[in-house]
């Protein structure tokens, strides 16, 4: 990744050294975007500090399950975990964006909610919970949002099978069933 030349970016406002620190958390420029890494303990503090810096708009919260892609590049001091919570933030005043990537362990996936910082993360956190099973502690409405409430599993996890529908073939004209007569779903 390091041999990638950061491409000519129209977002001229985003300029910071390649490897730096922001509020005690390592930050970097990744494909023309500012990214700051943190772990669960520093997550809420970092987000509060970023809001004080002028990042007043929560653009979105999503998750990534790195189960089958463990060798991603991370700055020093950040230990890779299975999940990442990705928060996109926007500063209207400075016309800048920043992305917070928070490492979340796979055996106990939970992070504090950002609802008290930005109320607009409410639906996004619900979606992230729904899709990845990452719990947001203190969220006012920690329910599923897109899947039915009795759904089992979290679909965007990498170990969630995409599933398939057993195909039923019509009987052949001769009356001999192609599937051997037994409608076994696979």
């Amino acid at each position, binding site marked *: 990744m390091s041999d990638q030349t950061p491409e000519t970016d129209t977002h001229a406002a985003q300029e910071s050294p390649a490897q730096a620190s922001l509020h005690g958390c390592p930050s970097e420029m990744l494909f023309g975007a500012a990214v700051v890494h943190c772990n669960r303990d520093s997550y809420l503090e970092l987000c509060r500090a970023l809001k004080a810096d002028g990042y007043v708009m929560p*653009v979105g919260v999503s998750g990534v399950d790195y189960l089958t892609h463990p060798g991603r590049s991370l700055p020093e001091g950040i230990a890779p975990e299975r999940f990442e919570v990705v928060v996109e933030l926007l500063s209207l005043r400075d016309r800048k964006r920043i992305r917070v990537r928070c490492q979340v362990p796979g055996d106990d996936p939970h992070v504090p909610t950002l609802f008290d910082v930005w109320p607009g993360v409410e639906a996004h956190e619900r979606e992230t919970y729904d899709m990845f099973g990452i719990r947001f502690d203190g969220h006012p409405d920690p329910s599923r949002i897109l899947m039915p409430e009795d759904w089992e599993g979290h*679909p965007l996890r990498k170990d969630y099978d995409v599933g398939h529908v057993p195909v039923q073939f019509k009987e052949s004209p001769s009356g001999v069933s192609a599937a051997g007569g037994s409608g076994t779903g696979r």
Partner: protein
Amino acid sequence: MSNTPVNPTRKATLLDKILGRVQPGGDELNELLEIKTDEGIQEMAPRGRTTDREMSIESGTPSRLGEGAARTAEGIRLDRMDVDIEVPEDETMILNLGPSHPSTHGVLRVMVELDGESIMRSKAVVGYLHTGMEKTGEELMYHQGSTNVTRMDYLAPFFNELTFSLGVERLLGLEIPPRATWIRMLMSEFNRISSHFLWLATNGADLGALNMLVYGWRDREMVLSFFEKVTGLRMNHNYIRPGGVAADLPDGWRDDVLALCEAIPRRMDEYDNLLTGQPIVQKRLQGVGPIDADTAIGLGLTGPLLRSTGVAWDLRRDQPYLAYDDVDFDVIVGTSGDCWDRYAIRFNEIRESVRIIRQIVDMMPGGDYRVQDKKVTPPPRNRIDESMEALIHHFKLYTEGFRVPPGEAYVPVESPRGESGCFIVSDGTSRPYRLHMRAASFANLQALPHLARGSLLADTIAIVSTIDPVLGDVDR
């Protein structure tokens, strides 16, 4: 209200809540809900369970109150008196608007708690159109991806394709030819017009101006027939692809575009007479569902919803992509953040888009319409017959796809509904490791409880209409 003992093993139904069988409040119920399922309930919980924090979703308090001003050790203190919340629970009514209701613009279910005709609380229940498109996106190769994402916000397909393609190009470090950039801009602006026309149509229908419904669809069709001429399809075009666009503009495109640029402003003047000056429309929209700028920002609202509050934020101007630097246009803003402002903004954005399109016609450069990189762009059909190399490239591209360097990219664009952005994580293979669409409608729908609070039931229709959610975008 009855005091039926609660059976912890039984799942509470909506009926239970309406009949008050599940007693609100206290740790007992919270415990019960946790026992029942760790997923919680999607429906509206009894009001007694609504904590101050939860209520602040409706009133947007965390964004409005300064740090420390009303924050106490217990959390946020709210003025519960701004809506008459002292009504006993058995005197209110919970009503479902939708999921199948003409004014929900798809399958949106809005639960409203009514005191007479006033809305005390509302909650949007979404997910009826969820088809796991983000999961599908992980299975499709990059050159197939735009077919998938174009179906998300189905009224603004070019913007989905555009943000996906810009993200992939960012990861590839690909510079696309100028003509492709300008074609993309041309199609985007026409798409903004067609989306706003449809909004004018449905908004008219929601307010009872049924003639507008017909006119809006008619004019949208005018734009869609241009799309069909260029891309072959009216919707879900798969036209903007990583590396450029699928085909060059057809012969005579300039005449078509100029004819549209003539017709659309004339039509807009007619609709100005028909709607803007009409007292009924004014009464239905003015002062309905207001929102202030700080709340809108804190809720992550974008697009006309944010601009209606007076925040001049338009990605085309503030974080320009494509070649929006080179064209001249105005960002339309409102002042009071009510439905009327949102109406006026969309109305005038159509005119601004026409203004942009006229400049695009003048400045359209020549040259390639897609990048001449054999690893990304398939060879033209006739080359396959005469060149072995072209055949191999074609075969490799359509069986293996092209590899994208590991990394992540998020390049947002200003869609008709606000900021639309595709977050792509690549692990170096030919399929996205993760594809997440930041849907403008999904974020904007969070404003509904806030906007509807304290208004009349009939106003909810106008409010949902001016939020302009596309449920395919919300649910993905």
